[in-house]
């Protein structure tokens, strides 16, 4: 067939030139939105973490004082510990279950599409709403024993875990399904011919091939675990507190984001401290995410 110089082809000069010329027009709104909605607040927030302020437009430079106070705050350290445990437990549970569900639903069972839709649906509900719904479910059950999820730290922790798993498994499942469907049939067939049993196929063929999905899912569930806020404030609000004899209290189910939020509203002197905590929080989550991404990337295989 003759190669035609079709002037209407997508890669022809007639089309490409105007696109190149007008590209900024299409890019500018998005870039502007990104600058206004993310870059500017980010740097402004960074700046404010070195200030004492009540509203963001009236500030007074205090240097590193906020960081000193933030790091000296025991409640911040406590929430960090609680959040870390939470993030690890939820990471493991979400990914194991999501992978298992995805694996089951790619085995050509009847109604697989229906199941996928149903499992994905919790993800469409907002965190605050979910928190209140689950608090009713838990308290409906615990109320039978005349108690409440707000009364015990363990319940609060596992309540949050159940809620988070329920919400996120469906989402991770979709990613795993996409990964599983991309595993080459001929490799699976070759494994079968070579006499590999089900477990061997799973661990030696399937999992190495879905490593990209595992990378992205662990990344998402780890950062989601650290960033959890809506569900936390709606389900437990940091309750129960342990009240020390000196009048201070430990908010036993308060995670990092909620701790930052609560610090912000303590009073006029603590907003800068909350901002400093937020910056530390960002550095922490970013470092963890990058470390985890590099670690799992190494395990990915080229098809």
């Amino acid at each position, binding site marked *: 067939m003759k190669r035609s110089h079709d002037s209407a082809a997508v890669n022809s000069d007639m089309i490409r030139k105007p696109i190149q010329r007008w590209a900024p027009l299409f890019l500018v709104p998005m870039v502007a939105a990104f600058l206004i909605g993310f870059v500017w607040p980010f740097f402004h927030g960074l700046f404010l973490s070195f200030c004492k302020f009540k509203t963001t437009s009236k500030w007074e430079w205090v240097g590193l004082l906020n960081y000193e106070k933030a790091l000296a705050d025991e409640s911040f350290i406590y929430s960090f510990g609680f959040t870390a445990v939470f993030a690890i437990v939820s990471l493991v549970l979400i990914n194991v279950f999501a992978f298992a569900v995805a694996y089951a639903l790619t085995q050509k069972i009847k109604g697989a599409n229906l199941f996928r839709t149903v499992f994905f649906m919790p993800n469409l509900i907002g965190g605050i709403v979910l928190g209140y719904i689950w608090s009713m479910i838990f308290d409906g059950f615990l109320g039978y024993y005349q108690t*409440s999820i707000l*009364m015990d730290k363990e319940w609060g922790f596992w309540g949050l875990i159940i809620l988070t798993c329920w919400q996120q498994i469906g989402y991770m499942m979709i990613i795993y399904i996409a990964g599983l469907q991309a595993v080459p049939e001929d490799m699976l067939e070759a494994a079968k011919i070579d006499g590999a049993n089900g477990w061997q196929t799973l661990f030696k063929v399937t999992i190495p091939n879905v490593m990209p999905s595992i990378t992205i899912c662990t990344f998402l569930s780890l950062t989601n675990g650290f960033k959890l806020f809506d569900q936390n404030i709606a389900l437990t609000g940091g309750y129960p507190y342990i009240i020390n004899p000196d009048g201070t209290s430990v908010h036993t189910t308060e995670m990092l984001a909620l701790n930052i939020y609560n610090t912000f509203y303590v009073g006029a002197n603590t907003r800068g401290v909350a901002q400093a905590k937020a910056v530390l929080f960002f550095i922490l989550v970013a470092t963890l995410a990058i470390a985890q991404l590099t670690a799992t990337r190494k395990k990915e295989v080229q098809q």
Partner: protein
Amino acid sequence: MKKLLAMLMALVMVLSFAACGETPEEPSDPEAPVEPGETEATGSVYWLNFKPESDEVLKELAAKYTAETGVEVKIETAASGTYNETLTAEMDKSEAPTIFVVGNQAAVDTWGDYCLDLTGTAIEAELNTDAYKLYDADGKLCSIGYCYECYGIIVNNALLNEAGHDVSEITNFETLKAVVEDITARSEELGFGAFTSNAMDSSSSWRYTGHMINLEYYYEYVDDNAAWANGTAAAPTLTGAYMDNFKNLYDLAVVNSIVDRKELANGGFDAQAEFAEGKAVFYVQGSWEAGGLEGKGMDLSTLSMIPYYCGVEGEEKAGLNCGTENYWAINGDASEEDIQATIDFMVWLVTDPEASEAAVGTFGVMPYKSAAVSTNPFLAQANAYLGDGCYNMAWITNFQPNVDAYRATAVNALNAYNADPTDANWATVVTAFIDGWAVQYQAVNG
């Protein structure tokens, strides 16, 4: 095929241009004069309202004022329980509120810098009392009350009489306890109980951690008002001398309630409905409840409100807890025209007969010389107590430091105490209220 694709892309491009062209379609010019002829209307008013239940009335009043004077009045209402958050965001805007609510000492500490000194303003001159003024540490008049309220224990007299008692029997904790326990003992036969539910979820816990606890603070304040700078500043620490009295009344209400104390942490009860349906005789609440109870079909003339009797000596002379968290502050950073317009609007609101009638209807009582007279029965009763020579239990609760965290800690302690009412758990309640005060005071002021 490629032709088709190219045409499609071209079409998309055209459409997106068209869409772009359509967006900046807001023709209204903000600089446009409100009405020709009314040239003085230069400033504008923006009131960030604190009371969601008053939103509708205030918006009507604002529209009326604009129609009369041409001055633009904007009313925004923060969702219940989010005033501080909303105010923080709104104060950052170039068109910040000109009127906002600075209702307690914690708010003065946070927002004092933003408040106009109200000393000598036209609106201050309209006040008929000095009781509702908040000052900052330098003596600047930051905010003035625009209405006040009272709280205590609401009594359903019809039910009380049905149980063979009368409200006149109740003059102190002893007599209150006798009546309450008699009703509880006979509740099956009577078909109603003594107290409504005392839920500790956020929609109801403030009735205890914010209001009932005031009896403890108040009597401490009476004993040593120098510690409170004669009622102008929070005491840095509390003694807890009256925690036993708080326990008396709290236990009485919780033990003799129609809802088991172990279920209170969950919440989800509707005390107003329980009271309106005649399930209980006593209801720990305040004057703002009058409208709600009337709306549920109660005859307000059958209700009365009694003070927090708790076993303090001389409490036969106790009155209701009158005070307010509703204080107006004017934004000192606003332009002069806006400040002037705001003061004019406030003066109009408390002097214009029709406007003040509507405002008093939603607010209860407004402590201003020319404001309309209140019709709230509970406030009338508060005044009757004062007329009989009883003392008003001032709202020392307004000094609670870092109020949200302080109260949340107290709720936690009370939850644990309700689940297992032991002395050890009560000791934690005392720690939360008393030592917790000092801790939060340090967090805010330290």
